[in-house]
């Protein structure tokens, strides 16, 4: 199931990263100021939903990918590894959502 979760989150990330990059390019080329960007994101449930999905997909995808890296590079296995990647995933979700809510509120 972890493999399926990683594949599914990768599919979501492929779309999210593309939209995110296009948005960045648009914002920079259009010369939007920080105030103008906030003006578009604050109170926008659409952007809130999109970036929440983005953050959650990262929080699922990255820890699952980190598991074999820890084993293959550091020889780290067992429950302590699982606990570490779980904490890492929660941390990603927390930090990401903090950033998303900061531009929404």
């Amino acid at each position, binding site marked *: *199931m*972890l*493999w*399926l979760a990683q*594949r599914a989150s990768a599919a979501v990330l492929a779309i999210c990263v593309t939209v995110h990059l296009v948005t960045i390019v648009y914002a920079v080329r259009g010369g939007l100021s920080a105030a103008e960007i906030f003006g578009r994101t604050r109170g926008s449930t659409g952007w809130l939903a999109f970036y929440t999905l983005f953050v959650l997909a990262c929080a699922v995808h990255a820890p699952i990918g980190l*598991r*074999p890296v820890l*084993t*293959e*590079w550091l020889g780290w296995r067992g429950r302590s590894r699982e606990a570490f990647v779980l904490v890492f995933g929660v941390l990603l979700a927390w930090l990401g959502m903090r950033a998303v809510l900061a531009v929404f509120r």
Partner: protein
Amino acid sequence: MSATLQVSVWRGGAEGALQRYDVPRYPSQTVLDVVTHIQRRIDPTLAYRYACRVGMCGSCAMTVNGVPRWTCRTHVDKVATGSELELRPLRNMPVIRDLVADMREFFDKWERAKGRFEGRARKSDDFARVAPDSPERQAADAGIECIGCGVCYAACDVVSWNRDYLGPAALNRAWTLISDVRDGATLERLRAVAGDAGCHACHTHTSCTERCPRHLSPTASIAGLKRAVAKAALAGKL
């Protein structure tokens, strides 16, 4: 073409060193010919392994100039760097002595991947009829000619990083059996090959497919296992 090959051969076990031999060079000479010349004409204490000499038994694989190969079908002309050859035992396996690698773990992993046919027919049943053009038969055919030489296992970086990983050959074997409509142990086999030591550990580097002397694609077999495991998991069977 130089008249003599300078051949460096691993001597010893896990600890050891390369020893240099000068071997006469001939047209159409194989790497196995070179090793045999050293043992029969220069140094009878050299240990190596071979049987059929025609690419069927899978026992003569070694590391030739850094690349795992079957030596009986590998021509010196195609792999020598100038007139130099470096021969070592297969990677990812303990060394018994000189060019002989211990393949026990390699074959134990076939067992762990449930690489044994589990027929479900009884004596009273008629012969199974499997259409040659059926998808299952073709999937099994694609991987069934494995000779168990260990080249893919030696070429696999994931094996070197994760000692529990079953490896390309064992997983390829599991896939051929899962594709075999006569076999009755699909679920047990899928359970055996799922997880951190199984097909999901594969990074799809395709070194196994690149190096397989039989031109099989264990990578494709492993991808098939991933799909089969996913389907079974979604159906709640695992």
